[in-house]
């Protein structure tokens, strides 16, 4: 089951996951499962997590995102976090979240460019 407001669509071989504005812990956990299931079902090569609507990124959310990225990696996929708001970025770093080795992009369009590089054949 997936909570409303969460959308997962496939663009070429990439999953575009739009995270809702204020997800509760269940929504975040469901989102993780949904992403991994979609990876398999859609034979996706990469995941873009669009968090441009997210206003609060706390330690639980961050931990689940980091975990999801690792799980996607184990399944052979790359993840890019797109659209983190400036206020969320400032807060996340001050909270002490280590997002150092997470691939990020300013917005979905740029994230798509990044993921597109990984496509077999490398065509954009």
């Amino acid at each position, binding site marked *: 089951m997936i909570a409303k407001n969460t959308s997962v669509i496939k663009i070429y071989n990439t999953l575009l996951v739009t995270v809702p504005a204020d997800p509760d*812990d269940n929504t975040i956990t469901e989102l993780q499962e949904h992403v991994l299931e979609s990876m398999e079902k859609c034979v996706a090569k990469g995941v873009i997590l669009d968090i441009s609507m997210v206003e*609060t990124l706390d*330690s639980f959310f961050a*931990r689940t995102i980091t975990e999801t990225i690792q799980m996607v990696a184990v399944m052979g996929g790359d993840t890019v976090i797109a659209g983190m708001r400036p*206020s*969320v970025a*400032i807060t996340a770093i001050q*909270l*002490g979240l280590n997002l150092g080795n997470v691939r990020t992009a300013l917005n979905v369009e740029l994230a798509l460019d990044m993921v597109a590089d990984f496509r077999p054949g490398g065509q954009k």
Partner: protein
Amino acid sequence: MMTGRDACEVSIDSENEMISVRKVIRNVATEMGFGVTDVTRIVTAASELTRNIFLYASSGTMIWRTCEVNGNTGIELIFEDHGPGIADIEEAMQAGFTTGGGLGLGLPGTKRLMDDMEIKSQKGEGTVITIRKYLRRC
């Protein structure tokens, strides 16, 4: 449950209250005139302390109110529970210390996000954590 115009109490007894606490605090802080980054800091801190309550104490309350300290107007949030208490506060404040399989960032991170943070805890009695953020400082 309203206890006045400039104060309000929210009971925390399940994960579902995370959303209401975050909404209430976001609205109050925005109305008080905090900028978007400070609002995000305050809401994130509230999110951490609320989660700690239902994770470690299973239930408790959050009270918010406006405060005035040394001529600075601010928002004060008090998180109170009657859970197991924190045995060693200094240890709990260290980044990475966790008994719940977390990142151990909630308490030390909250201290960095806010202007003031006070922890009172008695083993077996419960925990009261007060945090403040002032409008003047940034």
